[in-house]
């Protein structure tokens, strides 16, 4: 009865797979073993794995060498193991399967993965880069009231694209380590998406702030918009960088992304307001067509101003107010 020995990384990625049709195989550093390991902590003839009528078993041959099954230390002698058990000998991780070990059905691609895969075709990536360039240029044009030098605007847009490329490059290195392939274009796509979403959010926030007429609203919307777009980028990058299928990894990816964003938003919003010699207000002006909020009359504005003259937290350090007689007059 045959069996399979997988040599895996600590995270469980399969590095080598050895298939045996015979009932036993010996593992160790010596060259007469069936599986030869280069781990100095492994004995010359470390253990023997069998799959016979009694089922899968492991027999430790070298008493001095380190052998574990899960958290259980294995002594000299034979121990039965289940198919799929993980063993650690020396510093090498092994997984042992019986030949008839059931294999789960093939995993379907999630829709997002399908989209990402489809969009990372060279033509689609080029189109995305073009759209991103156009949106960045358009936004710079609409935000400017000077004569635009094409050279400067292009330089600005290309800098943004270079930043997106830098982000993709760093993440593709991470992905290369974790998954064995860089997936550069997928990361580039994620970064370009971030540029588009944050540019769009910026305009939406401007229109909302113009109508709301409040610095607080604008700041909150800005934090939210930046937070959400950054969280989406981080979640997407982590999802691309690490293998899917395990809910722990999903939670890990989203957990990191949203924790970072929540931390950023909370710390930014909880900043103590320091003294400012100039007032903090929102100066945004937009075309009148984008004004949907209501207006008030001049008299209402003057009346409402009354509330501004109330300073509940003012640290007024004089005991006698200016309307009172000075205490030092005699």
């Amino acid at each position: 009865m045959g069996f399979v020995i997988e040599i895996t990384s600590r995270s469980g990625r399969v590095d080598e797979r050895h298939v045996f049709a015979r009932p036993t195989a010996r593992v160790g550093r010596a060259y007469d073993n069936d599986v030869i390991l280069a781990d100095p902590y492994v004995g010359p003839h470390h253990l023997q794995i069998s799959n016979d009528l009694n089922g899968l078993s492991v027999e430790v041959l070298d008493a001095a060498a380190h052998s574990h099954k899960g958290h259980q230390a294995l002594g000299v002698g034979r121990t039965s193991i289940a198919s799929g058990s993980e063993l650690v000998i020396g510093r090498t991780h092994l997984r042992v399967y019986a030949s008839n070990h059931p294999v789960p059905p093939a995993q379907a691609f999630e829709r997002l993965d399908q989209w990402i895969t489809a969009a990372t075709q060279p033509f689609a990536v080029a189109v995305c880069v073009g759209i991103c360039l156009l949106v960045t240029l358009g936004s710079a044009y609409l935000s400017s009231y000077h004569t635009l030098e094409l050279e400067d605007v292009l330089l600005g847009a290309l800098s943004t694209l270079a930043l997106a490329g830098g982000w993709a490059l760093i993440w593709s290195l991470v992905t290369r380590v974790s998954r064995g392939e860089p997936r550069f274009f997928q990361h580039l796509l994620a970064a370009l998406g971030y540029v588009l979403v944050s540019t769009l959010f910026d305009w939406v926030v401007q229109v909302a702030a113009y109508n709301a007429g409040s610095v607080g609203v604008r700041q909150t919307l800005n934090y939210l918009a930046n937070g959400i777009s950054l969280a989406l980028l981080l979640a997407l990058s982590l999802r691309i960088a690490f293998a899917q299928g395990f809910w722990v990894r999903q939670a890990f990816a989203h957990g990191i992304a949203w924790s970072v964003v929540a931390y950023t938003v909370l710390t930014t919003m909880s900043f103590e307001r320091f003294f400012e010699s100039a007032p903090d207000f929102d100066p945004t002006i937009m075309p009148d067509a984008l004004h949907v909020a209501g207006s008030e009359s001049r008299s209402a504005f003057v009346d409402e101003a009354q509330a501004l003259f109330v300073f509940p937290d003012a640290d007024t350090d004089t005991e006698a107010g200016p309307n009172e007689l000075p205490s030092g007059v005699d």
Partner: protein
Amino acid sequence: MTRPHLKPLLIVLSLFVCPPALAEGARDLFQTSSAQIVQVLIIEAASDKKAAIGSGFHVGEAGFIATNFHVVSEAIHEPQRYRVEVLDASGEQVAAGIEHFDVVHDLALLRVPDAEAKPGLVIAEGALTKGETLYALGNPFDLGQTIVPGTFNGLLETSFYQKLLFSGSLNPGMSGGPALDEQGRVVGVNVATSGNQISFLVPVQYLQALLERRMMGDRLHAEGYEAEIGRQLLEDQEYKYALLLNLEWPTQTLGGARVGGDISDYFKCWGDTAEDDDLLYTLTESTCTSQDSIYISPRFQTGAIDYQYSWAESDALNDVRFSAFMTQAMGSMYTRNPATDKDVTNYQCRQAFVGEADSAEGKWRSVLCVRQYLAYPALYDVLYLGALVGRARQGLSSHFALSGVTEANAREFLDKFMGLQAWDS
């Protein structure tokens, strides 16, 4: 044989030679008056060294020494940290107390406790004549007593607080010293300079009023200084705003809008238009500023009133880009009061759309910001900024900044100011 090239040289040389009569007058005045002039020193208690200097002079018969408020302001605000001493012509340096002050006109009265009343300089009566020779005395740069001749060039008309224009050189350290006429009578108190022989004196009637107030028994103690400053500021702004708000404010056209004109002679108004081939817009600005501010401390000056209008239009920018320009034009507002968190609160602001686009007054994006004075809580700095919106590629921004104003006066000013402006249809 004439030498025409020497003529300009002789003219220039003659400028450096005092006329004999002027030199004689200065010499005689200095001899008769120098005993009444003192140097005022602000001594920092911990180091026992001088932290600031100025000048002063004995005035009247009751032993008072007159100087500027700003000379002794540190001792007024922090009497535990600073004390006032006076150094007379004989070299004797003694402690002096602050008896009273007029913060608005920058005057203070000192007296040396338990000292024998010393006859002081006499205050002049009657009006001065333009062109009259005056002599300013004081201790410039701690270099010893100095007399500086100059000319009276009239009253500063464009000011809420009258000042004498003295065409002579006042230098740091001479503040608080007297300006005398040829008879040796006090006609003003040295207070400020704009350089190039443009100097200012406090008219003597304010000193006279302060002396009379003190003679009637009104004397201040250290614990009442801040309250008295607050009372004087409040009284002054009531006077000033009553004057302004009762005036009929004229209007004028600026671009396509109607705006406020020159409210009164107390403001100096300037205008400019940014119009360049490289610019995609035209921006016409009109700025009016009051000429006065009241010195409270080196970091706290109040009393200024400024207002500004900016008309912008463009054929080259589309609506969105023109809005970006208006956003930049709305970008900042500030007062001339350089106060810090020791003096004022942070600003509280309110923004709103005011009016309707299809009305004659138009629709305004308005911002009002207010901060309170910590030591004088009935007074505020108030800033307003409004943008007239609703028309394609045309807009007006208007702004005012009031320093040291009460809520009632600020709101009345706001209402009147906003009521002036509209599209000029």
